[in-house]
């Protein structure tokens, strides 16, 4: 698939079309930095002075490039689709190669940054278990009750949460079996077929 650009986005990127591949690469590095850490207006001023253009033009260019990168990563464009999309903006062969290099090099990182921004469910982190034998309590001596203590660590929005749980051997075996069937299910023909067909 090709990216569809809005007119304003095209206009912002048009400033980059005539740049030297080296300068364009510099812009690319700045964009990646901003995607990682957020924008820093001081950088725009410096670059604008060097190139002798208005600060706004530089800012639009960098932000346009950031948007181009994140959109391409969002749709996981193939290399050919990326090049074709960029070609419609009027980039020449050399600058196209520069942009492609930037895209392929950083695709994984941008995807993982996007993943972090996505909605997350509380998810599993770690489980620790220990096996105890209850021997006595205040109300009853001479006991022999096996118990399995579990410490479940889950994570939600980067925050870890620890839950103490307990179970008996019968339920432990039961729970293990049930979750084993759950794992097997992903290997079933039905699930594999669906996974294969969703592209």
């Amino acid at each position, binding site marked *: 698939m090709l990216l569809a650009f809005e007119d304003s986005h095209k206009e912002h990127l048009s400033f980059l079309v005539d740049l030297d591949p080296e300068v364009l690469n510099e812009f690319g590095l700045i964009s990646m930095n901003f995607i990682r850490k957020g924008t820093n207006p001081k950088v725009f001023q410096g670059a604008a002075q060097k190139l002798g253009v208005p600060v706004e033009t530089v800012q639009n260019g960098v932000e346009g490039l950031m948007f181009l990168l994140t959109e391409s*990563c969002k749709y996981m464009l193939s290399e050919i689709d990326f090049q074709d999309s960029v070609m419609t903006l009027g980039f020449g062969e050399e600058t196209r190669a520069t942009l492609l290099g930037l895209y392929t090099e950083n695709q994984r990182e941008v995807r993982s940054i996007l993943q972090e921004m996505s909605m997350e469910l509380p998810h599993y982190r770690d489980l620790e*278990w220990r096996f105890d034998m209850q021997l006595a309590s*205040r109300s*009853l001596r001479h006991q022999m009750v096996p118990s399995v203590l579990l410490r479940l660590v889950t994570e939600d929005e980067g925050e870890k949460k620890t839950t103490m749980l307990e179970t008996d051997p019968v339920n432990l075996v039961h729970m293990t079996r049930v*979750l084993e069937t759950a794992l097997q299910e992903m290997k079933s023909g039905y699930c594999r077929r669906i996974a294969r067909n969703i592209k």
Partner: protein
Amino acid sequence: MELGASVLENISLAGDVAHIPDKLFGKFLMCACQGVLLEKHRDAVADNPAFKDLEKATLKSAYSGLVTLILEAAKHDTTEQSISTLLEECKYTPERIKEFTKIFTAQKSHIQLLLGKIGSSFPHIVDVDWRLDYYMKNNHMEKVNSAVYLISLKTEIPGEADTRDIQFSCSLEQLQDLVGKLRDATKCLEKIAQV
């Protein structure tokens, strides 16, 4: 098992023919056992017409003595021999000792079961539900395409009627990790059981 002087006094009271006639002793002891076991029988002695001729204060003291003895004996799993010795010291006749042992031994395991349930514990896992989703995309990203399991652990909490759910999600790898650890624990238990 050690009992205080006042408790011993109350136990003696229950064994005294002058206060509790022989034919009522068995019934009285059964009432005490039931009172320990079932909440609704807790006041059975007061309402029971069989005991209406007995003096209320004595009945109450005797009842508390027997209940304490039953609970302490069950708690420490006291031997019949020790109970007999104790009852002898409280001036019980051999017949009454025999009757006590017979009725108490029959109820002991139930009482111990009940005593074993008292106490605190962490939420106890009794079941687990799972659901398998295929995560396709979100507003920031297309083609996420990975399996996500939603796991819900059903737990019982001591003193609460309802079960409580603990929910979390797992990727395929995370579930493999979880199941691997549970399998380890199961294997370890099996090994211990064989010894």
